């Protein structure tokens, strides 16, 4: 766990009273969440609780139905006119979230491009960086995630863990101010989870601001500054890992953690139970 200076400045992400409805279904029911510079926020909760939807709303991959999301002080996705909100253009959305990086559960690398092209192409097209410089920066990013030697490989030639690290490099190359991770290890074989979590630990240690939706409680306990427990569309508990994992009395949280630990008990010896 790294100690970060507590920043009291304006949050990088400020979520205020956000609701999200899909038709009649209410997935988020009034979420308030602030993420400050260099903080790592881990979002946990049962599946279907709305945690991924919240992250996708912060990236504006989903349009939130009500409330406000500010990215470094700018309202995301909408403009307020006489108290009414109006959807802004895609280009304006792209401008406001230009400093937000996103890592997907399914990696979502472009299969017709090599690892290097996956990282370099957005630099050229979205940032207007010259081909040579883009390739150089892309290579440096791949080195950073330990994949300098696989730059010319196509995604199909990489393992899941390698693909996800390319996904992280692609997001990092844009020099984001915050990185959003949507269950980055959930699609991986167990033995490949560690290499991805290590890259994320290194990022956190460097002071990257991160919001991570995850089922990796060990990672949350060790790396997070704040753990947020979302249940049935509301934040049911939040605080330091110690507060959430040990102290908070919320029965739904306790049940969720109990289930998690029971699922992860791997050895039952004579009387003692080992939990990872």
């Amino acid at each position: 766990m790294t100690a970060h200076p507590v920043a009291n400045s304006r949050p990088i992400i400020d979520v205020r009273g956000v609701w999200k409805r899909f038709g009649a279904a209410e997935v988020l029911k009034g979420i308030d969440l602030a993420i400050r510079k260099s903080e790592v926020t881990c979002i946990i909760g049962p599946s279907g609780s709305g945690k991924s939807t919240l992250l996708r709303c912060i990236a504006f991959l989903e349009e939130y139905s009500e409330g406000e999301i500010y990215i470094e002080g700018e309202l995301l996705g909408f403009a307020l006119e006489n108290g009414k909100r109006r959807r802004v253009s895609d280009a304006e959305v792209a401008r406001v979230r230009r400093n937000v990086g996103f890592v997907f559960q399914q990696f979502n690398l472009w299969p017709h491009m090599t690892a290097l092209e996956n990282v370099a192409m957005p630099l050229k097209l979205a940032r207007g960086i010259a081909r040579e410089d883009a390739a150089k920066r892309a290579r440096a990013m791949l080195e950073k995630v330990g994949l300098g030697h696989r730059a010319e490989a196509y995604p199909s030639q990489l393992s899941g863990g390698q693909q996800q690290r390319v996904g992280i490099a692609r997001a990092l190359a844009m020099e984001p101010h915050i990185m959003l991770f949507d269950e980055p290890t959930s699609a991986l074989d167990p033995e490949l989870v560690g290499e991805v979590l290590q890259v994320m630990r290194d990022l956190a240690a460097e002071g990257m601001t991160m919001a991570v939706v995850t089922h990796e409680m060990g990672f949350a306990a060790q790396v997070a500054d704040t753990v947020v427990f979302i249940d049935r569309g509301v934040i049911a508990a939040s605080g330091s890992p110690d507060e959430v994992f040990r102290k908070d009395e919320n029965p739904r949280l306790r049940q969720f953690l109990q289930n998690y630990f029971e699922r992860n008990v791997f050895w039952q010896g004579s009387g003692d139970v080992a939990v990872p």
Partner: protein
Amino acid sequence: MFDFNLIIKSLPMLLQASVWTVIYSLSSVAIGFCIGTLMCAAGLSASRLGRGVAAFYVSFFRGVPLLVQLLISYYCLPLIGVNVPSSVAAVGTLALCTGAYIAEILRGGFLGIPHGLVEAARMVGLSRAQILTRIEVPLAVRFTLPSLVNETTMMVKASSLISVVGVLELTRLAQNIATSTFQPLEIYLTAGAIYFVINGVITLAGRFAESRFRLETAR
């Protein structure tokens, strides 16, 4: 009886005409591909107007025989004051026709693209047009390459129809030679063989591209 000398004598002229066949058919496929891409994107867009235009376009150009379309453009464009060379009108008509088929072929390819790939492109700041040209079209082409090659060979054959509106190409020239020499058998067999070779080359090129693309997905 079978006059090989006539074949040898007219072969240079036929080959020259077949260059026009290749130019007309490939350029109409190239233009048709752009039209097809736009119509496909419009047909899959959120805009009701876009979807309506695309649906009308596809149903018209697939529903009316190409020969009738060529006659319409040949006789009707001058009536509304559009005076272009008949070769231009013919290529334009071929392109519009194949564009409708290509739009339908690409639609299947577009629908096969995982939505996450587009979301990833949006998250790194690519514009709608960049996503279309750099992500969606290359992937849709890879998914539908055999059908696109098939459509191209169909267009090489369909280009023979433009002979009826007076455009000189392989079929038209073969007709001219056949009527002046009264030896249609030798000439039409030769023309047929040339079409066969052209499409053989196109099919081979398609196979080559397929094997190149397979490298990307090889494990």
